[in-house]
């Protein structure tokens, strides 16, 4: 009985009193069918255990004739995935909200309810999550009978002049934790009690393109390139996770050389993504020189990616069943030289981030998240590892070539912004080590295997470690050449809820850097979270009033001491 089977058995045993039926769709994954009313009890037992963390909530429309909508709650404990399946009638679909037990689950529920029209009982009142403000009522995009034309008829009303005036308190400005230099529009409201934040909410939806619905209208091959562009900064890991899922469904074994090249591109992408964030984080703190130098040195890895694949950002290295290109001797030498240069520069930046006085006062002891909080709230990736939670899918459930080229975990215990900077830079030393090992002993073998255009019926969960954390793909095939349903839960979605819970109770003046700390990627997911508001009589502040309040607060504090 391996660790995984152990964990699954423990999980199934915990849920025994409410189980209707259990089945094992694939190795390492067990599903338990529940009735809707037992859902809260089951989730509570798993949470109290604690049996792993909630990794995703997926909604499936079983079709107009079946007349039912199925909601899947997937929990992960290292390599073991336990699924709770709940069915609810299609016309009056409703599910109990597990928000009180797991605050970070709120926006996964919000997404499911907005897309499938499932009424989540017990959720606090909330505005629109992804869909546009002027999206017609009652149109649920992910339902099978949704017609894009009908939604398109209600063109967004001509620019309503009074729009800005209506919301005197709120002022829509492109600020906040999104990449400030990228100026992705977002709109943030903080409810404040004294100088402590009681609730934080973000209204995004500006980068929501409706990708999940579009995947159902395209063939498996076309979906590969659509899903690669969910996010431009971690494009390879999206395509790779999707390919691994489809290959699992088709029962195809990818040759070892292709797996090794996929892993090589994934690690090079991690180097480019973390260096990008190091620069943008410094730019947010006004340290433009570090931004310029970090991005100058990042060009080394961008050149490597371009010489290997032909494009700096969307490498399109993957094919269903393998990779497109090979790594020649010339490229091996270039990768090794590049890795040495990067290693030297990264040691320098680690030194700058940990000693530069003007940078330390913006990162030390700010936005701290304890290990227990990180564990329960389901944080993933470097944000979790900076709080001492060793959650790294390359170790927990090794995929592609990681079993042969293991990764050593990089964990810090500080939990504050500084720890997140340090973990990300030290993680890169580990990535460069794996890149050198991969490139020096690439296994022989061909590059790709043919995959049929029609994928056999079935469903699978495919996960991997993206630069920002655990990436979750749910892929369901009905046996046709087009997928039945593809659900993507991106790492920033998981970290959002956790970090915004730690923002509650945080100082006002430190909020911008705290939110930038999780390296949120807006186009990865367009999410919003609404949290519990304790104090009544809360006042809604706009971002500048918050910022100005931060100034006065610190000044009277400094003059008082």
């Amino acid at each position, binding site marked *: 009985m391996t660790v995984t089977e152990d964990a699954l058995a423990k999980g199934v045993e915990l849920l025994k009193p409410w189980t209707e039926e259990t089945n094992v769709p694939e190795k390492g994954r067990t599903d338990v069918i529940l009735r809707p009313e037992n859902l809260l009890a089951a989730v509570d037992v798993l949470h109290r255990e604690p049996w792993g963390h909630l990794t995703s909530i997926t909604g499936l429309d079983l079709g107009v004739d079946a007349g039912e909508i199925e909601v899947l709650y997937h929990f992960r404990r290292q390599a073991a995935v336990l699924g709770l399946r709940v069915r609810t009638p299609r016309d009056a679909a409703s599910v109990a909200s597990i928000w009180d037990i797991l605050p970070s689950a709120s926006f996964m529920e919000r997404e499911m309810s907005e897309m499938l029209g499932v009424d989540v009982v017990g959720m606090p009142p909330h505005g629109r999550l992804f869909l546009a403000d002027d999206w017609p009522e009652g149109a649920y995009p992910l339902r099978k009978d949704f017609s894009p034309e009908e939604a398109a008829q209600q063109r967004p009303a001509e620019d309503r002049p009074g729009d800005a005036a209506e919301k005197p308190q709120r002022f829509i400005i492109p600020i906040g934790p999104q990449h400030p230099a990228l100026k992705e529009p977002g709109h943030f409201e903080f409810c404040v009690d004294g100088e402590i934040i009681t609730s934080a909410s973000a209204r995004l939806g500006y980068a929501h393109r409706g990708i999940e619905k579009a995947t159902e209208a*395209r*063939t498996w*091959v*076309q*979906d*590969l*390139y*659509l899903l*690669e*562009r969910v996010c431009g900064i971690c494009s390879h890991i999206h395509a790779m996770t999707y390919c691994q899922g489809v290959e699992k469904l088709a029962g195809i074994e990818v040759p070892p050389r292709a797996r090794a090249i996929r892993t090589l591109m994934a690690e090079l992408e991690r180097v480019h993504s973390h260096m990008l964030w190091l620069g943008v984080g410094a730019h947010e703190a006004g340290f433009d*020189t*570090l931004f310029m*130098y970090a991005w*100058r040195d990042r060009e080394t890895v961008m*050149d490597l990616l*371009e*010489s*290997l*694949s*032909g*494009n700096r950002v*969307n490498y*399109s290295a993957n*094919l269903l069943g393998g990779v*497109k*290109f090979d790594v020649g001797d010339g490229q091996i030498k270039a990768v090794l030289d590049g890795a040495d240069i990067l290693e030297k520069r990264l040691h*320098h930046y680690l030194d*700058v981030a940990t000693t*530069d006085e003007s940078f330390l006062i913006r990162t030390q002891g700010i936005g701290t998240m304890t290990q227990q909080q990180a564990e329960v709230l389901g944080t993933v990736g470097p944000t979790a590892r900076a709080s001492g939670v060793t959650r790294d899918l390359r170790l927990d459930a090794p995929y592609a070539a990681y079993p042969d080229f293991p990764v050593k975990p990089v964990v810090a215990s500080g939990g504050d912004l500084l720890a997140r900077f340090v973990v990300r830079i030290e993680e890169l030393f580990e990535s460069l080590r794996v890149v050198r090992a991969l490139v020096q002993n690439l296994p022989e073998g061909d590059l790709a295997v043919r995959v049929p255009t029609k994928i056999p019926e079935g469903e699978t969960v495919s996960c991997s470690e993206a630069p920002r954390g655990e990436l979750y793909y749910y892929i369901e095939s009905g046996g046709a050449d087009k997928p039945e349903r593809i659900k993507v839960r991106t790492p920033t979605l998981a970290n959002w809820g956790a970090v915004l819970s730690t923002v509650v109770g945080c100082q006002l003046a430190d909020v911008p850097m705290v939110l930038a700390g999780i390296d949120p990627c807006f186009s990865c997911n367009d999410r919003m979270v609404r949290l519990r508001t304790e104090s009544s009589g809360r006042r809604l502040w706009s971002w500048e009033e918050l910022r100005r309040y931060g100034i006065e607060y610190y000044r009277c504090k400094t003059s008082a001491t």
Partner: protein
Amino acid sequence: MLRDVLTALVHHPVTERYPFERQPVPSRLRGKVIWDADKCIGCGLCVKNCPAEALELHVLDKKAKRFVMRYRVDRCLFCAQCTYSCPRGALSLSNQEWELAALSKEPFDIYYGEDADVQAVLAGTTGSDDQGG
């Protein structure tokens, strides 16, 4: 950072003066799609697999191999899926033509094929929507 900054002051900046000096591009760079008329057998696999519906094949005469390939540069993702789907290797991505910017959309609508065929296609299907994807 002081050491960095001072060494940078005395060294030459790393800036490449792009439009005036050009650096060599990597050989695998994925630029504009090039269609080779003789190799093409008109199977349309590339049109079916293109994720952005950027290719559109007009088959005038299959036996005489008279085809016209309409290529929309603005829709293209330069992902090279068509080069892998084509059984005859008729499509390839040039690594020289990647400066494709233009002040209007006309240059993005390219018709590969014999002039006579292209005129026929233009005349024949000016209005019809593309047969692609």
